[in-house]
């Protein structure tokens, strides 16, 4: 396991970037610019619905491995009830996942 340094949010963000690399491995373009502002949802994201599903699962599995307990990254009541989707960009997804970590750890 590759232990990441930094705050939980920074760790989660780097795991999101790794997951992006994984799901874009076989596609064209193979890479997108990765930053907290990287758009994940909508036509400008470059991710179709299947890639988005793959991304969420890849992020969820990476976060579980890194932190050592299961989480529900998006099939989650809190995610569904938010007015603005946590999937808007890499930063909002990292914020959301970081916010559910304490509860998931229990």
């Amino acid at each position, binding site marked *: 396991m590759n232990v990441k340094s930094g705050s939980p949010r920074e760790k989660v963000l780097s795991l999101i970037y790794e997951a992006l690399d994984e799901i874009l491995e076989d596609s064209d373009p193979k890479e997108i610019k990765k930053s907290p502002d990287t758009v994940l949802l909508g036509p400008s994201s470059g991710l179709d619905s299947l890639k988005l599903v793959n991304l969420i699962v890849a992020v969820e599995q990476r976060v579980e491995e890194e932190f050592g307990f299961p989480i*529900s990254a998006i099939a989650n009541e809190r995610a569904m009830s938010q007015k603005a989707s946590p999937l808007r960009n890499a930063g909002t997804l990292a914020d959301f996942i970081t916010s559910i970590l304490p509860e998931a750890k229990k």
Partner: protein
Amino acid sequence: MPLNEQVMLITGTRKGIGKYLAEYYTAKGFRVIGCSRSPADFRLERYEHFCVDVSDEPKVKEVFFGLRKKYGRLDVLINNAGIASMNHILLTPVSTVQGIFNTNVIGTFIFCREAAKIMKKTGGRIVNFSTAATPLRLEGEAIYASSKAAVVSLTEILARELADFKITVNAVGPTPLKTDLTRGVPQDKMDRLINRQAIRRFAEFKDVSNVIDFFLKKESDFVTGQVVYLGGVTG
């Protein structure tokens, strides 16, 4: 674990058909992970048992987390866990309805979702359990048959949603077997029920595993979204 050993998860393995399937598939060389609400009173080679209520989402997620860490793969999921309750609708409390739907529908849903997350890299096979009671519209089985009708819909739609991941989703619909689920049913009622089948006899465990074997065959990768009923009952 040998590299080519396939990993199978079966729910409801403490007794009845689930226990039979655990014995059958470990004997065929699968690594089988079983679960039920209470501990299993048997031991098998290549078998591991978890105590979990299939509708308890956090606990089920822990089982999958452990499974992924330990084996890193899941090839087959058999959603066998199920409960029934024969009763006239006028005598059926809501708590019974909730209990049946929790195990039969929500349990099946959670296991399908979590299994698909692991299977999606390499493909996999999911087999759900319906029942002949659904197409036969059996009186006294309104809630049980409704819950299994939901499982049929789930099977048909997940087959489409998971096709891109090379995961097939099918269901077997048994006619009455001699298990705890049918033990309380009066003989005359059972006879009438069996008389509605094209082939009039009790199903045997091997009839069920035969259908599952077909769904698991390598060559069955073009078979998905199907429900196979036993005994000539048609959907």
